[in-house]
């Protein structure tokens, strides 16, 4: 602890243009600050964060020999680092700086009460000065960063992020819950607006993932537990029982030349038939299966929930001895420096909007089901058919905003962002494949805002798609023909319409993957009101989170199309690689410290610590608590509890907090 010397505080007030000065009388607060004990200089400036503003702090420290700095401005989340640097440049320890938030917590919320806001600003400054008078020199602890990263989710976002990290020389664990990588994009037929075949542009990346020696691919694996902090995450992975060994795993067990080679002999003899999830159960799979021919890795998986353990597959596999029907989940601990979450999305269960008849009417399908039905590698070989009778539909309707932009509580209030464009693409695909087909798009707005998107809209309109500006009110089925009557209002014609269609495609809203919440909580990431993972800042830090070292990529952060997803994945990879390349991170020195002369060695704190940062050790014949500083987050649980008051919480000491409370309640009197 630093030796006590007389406090000499400098107070600096920021106008923030009119953001603060518009509703707070800066001059009045400035004059008031001069009257506070310990304050030797009180100054103001238009923008304290600007170079001249910071210069004022640097100069004042030298001129007045200051021991503490108070800046009354915005939130410390924005500019605390700025002013700490300025304090350091001025020649004092950066932790002798204290910030008073008079913008977010004052001027912005009390915009129309100048008098009240000014009084509140005086309180905030007085409290900050009281703390600044007692601040001590602190020194951040630098810890090394593990040269490895984890990416959770292997859709196009996770694939891109892993490739970028791996190509930057960082060993990257790519963890995927399903047996193959590829995610949603591998289910799509074509991509807008270029009409590239989705598999054709994705599979090269999937193959790269399989080959890249810096990528450690963990399919059919989930994150079980996350411990540690930026630079030193210790992550426990649950490798789900796959029932099938890779060649490497087989070799490790002494089976030379064995392991799964993807030949499929096992699947051929398996007697159990289930719906293939990849094809939305529109095609069968066996209990031992691969989802589609282009899986990476090309290793079969046993679905133990439906396997009857007849053993036919084991026989068929023969000398490769790849199949182990007694396999159990196994656990592995890995150490990484940073993490990227890319857990993606699923469709909103659109049957909840009962008026559109999904699950009641066979010929009402979702956009993703349409993708499989129109895809050459799909269950129908790319021939779009009506589920009810296998006939080629001649009149197809597309229902946009199905469950999106919906404030009823059944549905999603947000725009799902890619449905307009894929519905346009769907219309193009049927016009291209089915001669004489009619495509009707029921829309409220066509949101074609990306590069070449509006041009794509023009093209589809030119190809003959009919656009009906009205949201679909309800759909009824003719029980004989299984045709669908689609009711809506053509709001431009101002007439209700009743259009008989062969097939209706619902552009269903999207929502976070079911596992996203579990993963999010493991990594300590918040979610926003709409349920998607919360970025650190919506504009200036869209890849980061409030947990240092954890980044977001793709739709898990909010609906986005493939170009935006890939862009964000590259951003997240870049952000996640920075601490790894720097090689060390500085931890804020808000550690608990044991005052050994007061510690009774009761050990209560050790069990309370949520971060396992404390331990009891033997020192000079008595038991005392010891802090592992790198693990301590400064939460204060131990300090608040300690019956002997033996724990010193750096930067939040009891005298500092009491001084703040006194300053507030006693109005500055001691």
């Amino acid at each position, binding site marked *: 602890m630093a030796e006590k010397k007389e406090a000499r505080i400098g107070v600096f007030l920021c106008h923030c243009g009119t953001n603060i000065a518009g509703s707070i009388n800066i001059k009045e607060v400035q004059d008031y600050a001069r009257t506070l004990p310990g304050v030797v200089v009180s100054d103001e400036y238009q923008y304290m964060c600007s170079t001249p503003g910071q210069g004022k702090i640097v100069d004042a420290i030298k001129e007045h020999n200051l021991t503490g700095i108070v800046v009354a401005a915005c939130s410390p989340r924005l500019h605390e680092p700025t002013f700490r640097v300025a304090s350091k440049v001025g020649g004092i320890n950066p932790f002798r700086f204290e910030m008073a938030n008079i913008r977010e917590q004052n001027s912005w919320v009390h915009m129309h009460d100048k008098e009240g806001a000014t009084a509140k600003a005086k309180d905030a400054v007085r409290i900050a000065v009281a703390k600044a008078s007692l601040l001590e020199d602190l020194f951040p602890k630098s810890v090394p960063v593990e040269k490895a990263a984890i990416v959770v989710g292997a859709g196009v976002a996770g694939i891109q992020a892993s490739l970028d990290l791996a190509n930057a020389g960082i060993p990257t664990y790519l963890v995927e819950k399903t047996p193959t990588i590829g995610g949603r994009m591998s289910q799509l037929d074509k991509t807008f607006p270029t009409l590239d075949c989705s598999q054709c542009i994705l599979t090269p990346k999937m193959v790269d993932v399989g080959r890249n020696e810096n990528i450690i691919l963990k399919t059919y694996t989930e994150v079980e537990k996350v411990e540690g902090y930026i630079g030193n995450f210790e992550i426990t992975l649950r490798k789900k029982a796959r029932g099938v060994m890779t060649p490497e795993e087989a070799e490790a067990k002494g089976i030379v030349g064995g392991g799964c080679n993807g030949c499929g002999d096992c699947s051929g003899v398996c007697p159990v038939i289930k719906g293939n999830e990849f094809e939305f159960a529109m095609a069968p799979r066996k209990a031992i299966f691969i989802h589609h021919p282009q899986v990476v890795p090309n290793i079969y998986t046993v679905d133990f929930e439906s396997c009857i353990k007849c053993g036919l597959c084991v026989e068929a596999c023969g000398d490769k001895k790849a199949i182990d029907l007694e396999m159990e989940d196994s656990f592995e601990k890995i150490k990484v420096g940073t993490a990227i979450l890319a857990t993606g999305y699923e469709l909103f269960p659109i049957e909840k909007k009962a008026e559109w008849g999904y699950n009641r009417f066979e010929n009402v399908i979702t956009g993703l089901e349409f993708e499989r039905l129109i895809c050459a590698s799909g269950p129908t070989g790319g021939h779009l058919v009506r589920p009810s009778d296998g006939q080629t539909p001649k009149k197809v309707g597309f229902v946009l905003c199905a469950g999106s932009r919906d*404030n009823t509580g059944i549905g999603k209030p947000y725009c799902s962002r890619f449905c307009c464009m894929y519905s346009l693409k769907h219309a193009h695909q049927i016009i291209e494949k089915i001669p004489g087909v009619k495509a009707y798009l029921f829309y409220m707005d066509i949101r074609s805002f990306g590069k070449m998107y509006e041009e794509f809209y023009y093209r589809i309109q030119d190809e003959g798609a009919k656009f009906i500006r*009205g949201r679909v009110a*309800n759909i009824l089925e003719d029980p004989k023909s299984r045709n669908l009557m689609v009711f*809506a*209002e053509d*709001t431009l014609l101002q007439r209700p*319409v009743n259009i008989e269609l062969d097939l209706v495609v619902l552009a269903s809203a999207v929502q976070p993957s079911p596992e996203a919440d579990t993963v999010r909580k493991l990594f300590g990431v918040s979610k926003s009101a709409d349920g998607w993972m919360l970025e650190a800042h919506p504009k200036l830090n869209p890849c980061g989170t409030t947990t240092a070292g954890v980044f977001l990529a793709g739709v898990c952060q909010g609906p986005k199309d493939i170009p935006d997803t890939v862009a964000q994945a590259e951003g997240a990879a870049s952000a996640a690689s920075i601490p790894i390349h720097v090689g060390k991170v500085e931890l804020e020195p808000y550690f608990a410290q044991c005052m050994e002369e007061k510690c009774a060695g009761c050990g209560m704190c050790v069990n309370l610590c949520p971060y396992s940062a404390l331990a009891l050790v033997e020192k000079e014949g008595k038991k005392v608590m010891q802090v592992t500083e790198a693990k301590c987050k400064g939460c204060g649980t131990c300090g608040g509890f300690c019956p002997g008051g033996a724990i010193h919480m750096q930067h939040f000491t009891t005298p500092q907090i009491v001084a703040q409370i006194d300053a507030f309640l006693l109005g500055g009197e001691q």
Partner: protein
Amino acid sequence: MAREKNYGNPQLENKLRDRYYYVDDTKPEFLANVEKIGRTIAHMCYQCGTCTGSCPSAPRSSYRIRLFVRRAVLGLEEEALTDPDLWLCTTCYSCTDRCPRDIAPTDIIMAMRNLAFKWDIIPRNFLQTVQLIYKSGHGVPNNDVNRAARERLGLPRDPPTTHAYPEFIPGIQKILDHYKLKENADRMLAEEGK
């Protein structure tokens, strides 16, 4: 801008009348009144047409509920209240069930009917209904055809309403008198007869 064109011919004047929407013609308080009476958020309408698409009246009439909501949003009071279509809503509430913005369009229509009544705008069949309720407690009183049907179904000839308990009719009359409904209905029907 000149709104009168002075053709000197009323038919032509009407045919070629100015159809611009002028902000001066609007009454913002109309939206406020509709929202207050209807207890719903008319101003949140994004004009998707789910209401009209759901409406059983729209395919067989010129009634477009979406247009009424639009008129509320724009404060077009006179246009809304003088449109006879206002009275074609069956109050089935299908639009309210399905509105994605969680607005209750039916309640917007009911609010407008309330406001129209203050202007003495109300179709005569509604006034006759008031008179019937005053007299019998029923908008559609029981009749012999119904009585026979009820008998066949093993039900009492009259339902357990004011038909079976006429002693409650004075209570209903008291409510209608309180709101001057009967008085106004009688007056308007009499004026119409003149």
